[in-house]
């Protein structure tokens, strides 16, 4: 049964992109004028609501598309629509065509759903910003680009969205560009992403020349035939792009710095959606990854990033940076899932993570809002008493990420670990479990320090709970963080079945094993939480903390300094680059190129100095030359005629 005819699906899919896109451009060009206009005077910040409406409209479209899909039989749940021709050169044909299938609809729902909530939150959070409407213009542009990315039915269009979200990320990290730190962070994010994108582009070229087409369907259909070596190369190049966008080792360094942007940006772009683009891309092109051996790399990079990020998160004091490292770590989980062929588990974790991480970022934003921009968690404490909504919702997020049953994070993380076990990747499984313990520890550390214990706020600050717009975003996200797991409850596996036509079925151990694994995961989570409680919440915790610090000092110090990776990159990559630029500027440019040009000038001057002697001033000499020219031309004519 089809609910809506084919053409309407095309319109529906295209308008989910058009609405935010058009709103973005309206706000970009007329935002300030609209805000200063008649309506703007009466309803302050109505441009933000306009932007929110655009995203909500896209969300509604996504919901309709979702119901359309589930109303169809399973094998018909992939609707490709061609919106318009784009590039048509000879046999090379790339059009603006969109693919509505279970995977893209799930992403669509996450992006627009979380996006809508974050937009609502932003109307409160950015209320007093002088570039209020421009913020929403960027946010809408971001959502439009992200929708292009997830809906694209060919790799080139996906790349358009990929670069679009990168651009918006840059613009929004540097939104407060008056702050040098923000401007630098934006540049860093952009440049690091460029490195990944370059590899990604190479991967696209290789795909194009191997398959001869950029359409998703054709690529995935011919993936098996392209040869293992080629498939591995392509996959590694594409994955290099994913490491940039999704903040994996070795290109993760931009994500912590990206926290200089406004908090809603961190929530939407650097937690819920953009950074998951790499995860989505790997799932989308999973047949290519399956055809080669690249998945081993994907899994290990994911696992190592998960552990690495968790280590740094455990020692960080900046509340947003903890969340950033945590994001990195959770993204590592998703790639770990892909690495063990459990794509639906990866996407499942992507969805639940979008819920609880966006929730926690928004909660952190509410805390900062209440504490006049303070981000150092050593200066906070017991905030749940003064800001109950934020506190309770944050607690939901905390329990979800720790993997406490029955919160959303438990199910998704358990699915990943179970898949790893099933694939006999015990090393990856162990890293995952260790990371789970660390995750529980550092998140508890964050939550307990900030929200529990004695009330502690920076001096001169009157803490207050979030305004209703912020709460309106926090509460639904908290509910989702609590119950989000139902979309893929063990036994029903709804999401997995839904995604099966796209990414294939995933396998989990049979019998008693999954229960044991789940128990193990729960146990390590409990260990992490209890450890944090022991170190931060009991009377003797200060002493214990000092003792622990004494014992693990090198590790903690190193983690606190981000394992010196920034310094390492600075020495190994940035410095030689600067040297090269210096060399090019002072030697190549100043000496060789300028020298060449000066030489031409000198030569011309010297030649003129000699040649001007021809100018004798005698008119009869000129006439003689004139005659010579005439005779010469006539001679040539005579010689050619005869």
């Amino acid at each position, binding site marked *: 049964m089809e609910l809506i005819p084919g053409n309407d699906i095309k319109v529906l899919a295209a308008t989910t992109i058009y609405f935010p896109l058009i709103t973005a451009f309206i706000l970009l060009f007329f935002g300030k004028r609209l805000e200063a206009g008649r309506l703007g005077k009466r309803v302050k910040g109505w441009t933000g609501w306009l932007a929110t409406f655009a995203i909500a409209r896209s969300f509604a479209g996504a919901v309709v598309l979702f119901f359309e899909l589930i109303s169809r039989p399973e094998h018909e749940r992939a609707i490709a629509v061609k919106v318009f021709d784009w590039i048509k050169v000879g046999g090379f044909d790339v059009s603006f065509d969109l693919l509505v299938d279970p995977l893209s609809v799930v992403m669509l729902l996450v992006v627009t759903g979380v996006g809508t909530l974050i937009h609502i939150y932003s109307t409160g959070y950015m209320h007093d910003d002088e570039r209020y409407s421009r913020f929403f213009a960027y946010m809408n542009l971001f959502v439009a680009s992200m929708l292009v990315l997830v809906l694209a039915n060919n790799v080139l269009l996906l790349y358009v969205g990929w670069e679009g979200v990168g651009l918006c990320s840059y613009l929004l990290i540097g939104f407060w560009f008056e702050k040098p730190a923000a401007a630098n962070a934006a540049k860093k994010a952009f440049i690091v992403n460029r490195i990944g994108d370059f590899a990604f582009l190479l991967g696209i070229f290789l795909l194009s020349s191997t398959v001869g087409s950029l359409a998703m369907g054709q690529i995935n259909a011919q993936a098996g035939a392209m040869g293992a070596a080629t498939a591995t190369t392509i996959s590694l190049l594409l994955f290099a792009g994913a490491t940039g966008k999704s903040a994996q080792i070795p290109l993760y360094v931009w994500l912590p710095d990206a926290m200089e942007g406004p908090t809603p940006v961190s929530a939407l772009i650097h937690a819920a959606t953009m950074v998951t683009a790499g995860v989505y891309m790997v799932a989308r092109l999973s047949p290519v990854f399956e055809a080669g051996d690249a998945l081993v790399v994907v899994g290990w990079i994911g696992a190592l990033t998960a552990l690495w990020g968790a280590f740094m998160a455990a020692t960080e004091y900046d509340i947003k940076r903890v969340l950033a490292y945590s994001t990195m770590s959770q993204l590592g989980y998703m790639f770990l899932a892909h690495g063990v062929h459990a794509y639906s588990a990866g996407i499942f974790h992507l969805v639940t993570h979008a819920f609880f991480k966006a929730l926690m970022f928004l909660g952190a934003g509410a805390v900062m809002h209440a504490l006049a921009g303070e981000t150092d968690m050593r200066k906070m404490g017991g905030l749940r008493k003064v800001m109950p909504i934020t506190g309770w919702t944050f607690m939901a997020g905390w329990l979800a990420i720790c993997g406490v049953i029955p919160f959303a994070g438990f199910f998704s993380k358990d699915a990943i670990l179970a898949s790893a076990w099933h694939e006999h990747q015990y090393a990856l499984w162990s890293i995952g479990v260790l990371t789970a313990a660390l995750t529980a520890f550092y998140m508890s550390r964050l939550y307990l320090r900030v929200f529990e214990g004695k009330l502690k706020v920076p001096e001169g600050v009157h803490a207050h709970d979030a305004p209703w717009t912020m709460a309106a975003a926090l509460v639904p996200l908290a509910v989702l963080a609590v119950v989000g797991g139902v979309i893929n409850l063990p036994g029903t596996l709804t999401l997995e079945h839904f995604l099966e036509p796209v990414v294939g079925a995933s396998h989990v151990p049979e019998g008693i094993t999954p229960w044991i694994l789940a128990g193990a995961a729960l146990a390590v989570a409990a260990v992490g939480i209890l450890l944090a409680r022991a170190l931060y919440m009991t009377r003797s915790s200060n002493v214990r903390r000092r003792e622990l610090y004494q014992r693990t000092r090198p590790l903690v110090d190193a983690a606190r300094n981000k394992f010196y990776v920034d310094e390492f990159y600075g020495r190994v990559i940035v410095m030689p680059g600067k040297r090269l630029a210096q060399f090019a500027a002072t030697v190549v440019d100043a000496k060789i190129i300028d020298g060449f040009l000066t030489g031409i000038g000198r030569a011309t001057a010297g030649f003129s100095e000699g040649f001007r*002697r021809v100018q*004798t001033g005698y008119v009869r000499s000129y006439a003689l030359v004139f005659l010579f020219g005439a005779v010469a031309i006539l001679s040539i004519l005579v010689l050619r005629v005869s």
Partner: protein
Amino acid sequence: MNSVGPGYYLLLSALMFTVGVIGALVRRNAIVIFMFIELMLNAVNLAFVTFARMHGEVVGQVIVFFVLVVAAAEVVVGLAIILVIFRQRASANVDDVNLLKW
């Protein structure tokens, strides 16, 4: 009927033109140079009239008419320039007017 072939007229025209060229290059009195230029123009006129006879129409003669008018204008202006130069330097020698050089 004219029994003399046009080739002879053209030969005369070419020789007179050459004499005009040589004279304009070797003489130094500005007025004399001008007269040699007139000689060249006359030689060309002869060629045009001959061409008119060769083609059996009068268009060539019309061209001569225009050459005459242009020559007249040119002589008038040229002589005026010579006059002005003479007032400045009391000489009609073109070699004396050589300030405009490197």
